[in-house]
């Protein structure tokens, strides 16, 4: 069902865990549909300095979370925003069709975090 790469990221997820001193936390999903992804970021000079995730969900949800954190780590926020769901799936050598939409939310969590971070910054700028 899953590619070897998905299995590898599921079994040995990169950047898993919570971050006490995150600059911002992104979150998507809800428990009803069975997938929740949280990403924690440290941001410096508009770049993702460090990133962690925690995920409630199936194998695909864990693996896409792990993969997306790898893909955006160190990137500028603008570049991170460009990472798409399709790219994540591709980097994992594909996902089963049924999992493409519902368990491939990790890129959205990144966007959520970056958008929150930017609107927080704007608020601060306005202060």
């Amino acid at each position, binding site marked *: 069902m899953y590619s070897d790469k998905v*299995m590898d990221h*599921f*079994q040995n*997820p990169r950047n*898993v*865990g919570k971050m006490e001193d995150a600059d911002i936390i992104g*979150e998507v999903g809800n*428990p*009803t*549909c*069975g*997938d*929740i*992804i*949280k990403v924690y970021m440290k941001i410096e000079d508009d770049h993702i300095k460090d990133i962690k995730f*925690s*995920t*409630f*969900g*199936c*194998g695909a*949800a*864990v693996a896409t979370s792990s993969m997306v954190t790898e893909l955006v780590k160190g990137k500028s926020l603008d570049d991170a925003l460009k990472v798409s769901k399709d790219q994540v799936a591709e980097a994992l050598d594909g996902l089963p069709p*049924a999992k493409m939409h*519902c368990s491939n939310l990790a890129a959205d969590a990144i966007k959520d975090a970056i958008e929150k971070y930017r609107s927080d910054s704007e608020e601060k700028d306005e202060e």
Partner: protein
Amino acid sequence: MDKRYYFDHAATTPIDEKVFQEMEPFLTEEFGNPSSIYQEGQKANQTIMEAREKVQDLINAEDSREIIFTGSGTEADNLAIKGVAMALKDKGKHIITSEIEHHAVLHTCEFMEKHLGFDVTYLEVDGDGFIDLEDLENSIRDDTILITIMMANNEIGTIQPVKEIAEIAKDHEVYFHTDAVQAAGQIEVDVQELGVDLLTLSAHKINGPKGVGALYVKKGVKLIPQMNGGAQERKRRGGTENLAGIVGFGKAAELARKRLPEKQKKLIKLRDKIISNIEENISKAILNGPRGDKRLPNNVNFCFRYIEGESILLNLDFLGIAASSGSACTSGSLEPSHVLLSLGMSHEVAHGSLRISLGYNTTEEEVDYLLDKLPGVIQKIRDMSPLYDG
């Protein structure tokens, strides 16, 4: 291959060696068409008769002609519901079932509603999965023609009060079908003692081959055949018989009957050991389904809060353990199990279910291995979960 620990006997069972041995000749030299009148055909025909008698014995039917072989338990469920409904549609178009039936029953009922203008009542169940007999009786109407309630649930092992249901059905002159796919071979199934009119069996749940089932139809029960074709199965199910499959089913039925008392004793002990061990060693583990006599001897089902079932299964699989989360048939779907939701559980909790189901050959050592590994797996996944706070 590393040793595997198979705890998914409710999804399917390994074919017993003795069953395979019985099947083998019919996959090699003995290939006659049971409908043919020459030697090869007559031999095949005779063989099917013997298999039919063994299935008859498993459920204590009065007459072997009350057994119709089908291509699966699913087909038997379809035949029971559609066959009775079409036979009695002039009498009425109301069917009663429960919310926690297998999809083979539920989706057939939905088919009857959508395509054939029937009206279906889906009885709710309590927190342990039992229907309410008063509820049932109250839902019977003048136009009710069939009650179909499973004998034992495939996910949570709840054993329904089938005999009482049969009495109510008889009082109201309504046919009663029960899906005993999960019950047969696990608990005693005696159609005469239970008083059911139709009953479904599937070979691959009792160490027989996949792709063969049976429907018991009590003498006199009206049924419109649903598989139209040749005159097989006394004109009640067309199609060249799955000869080897039926032979295997017969042998599996014979073995299941012989093994029942010993198997039951053994599995109840193992089942209760698993349940109490998990409850002791894993926090926030919720047992689904009842305890004791009213639970199938081979079924354990827990919800582990804060985590999702597929992740549990994949982690167990790495450790050599095969188990399931909800019915194997529903694993294509992304919705949590309809059975667990019917118990009143939230979606979130329902997603985190694990079914452990045992077979006659499950050993205590295998159980110990499972119990040794499970807490670590649950903890590992919880540590990743945003819902879990340590």
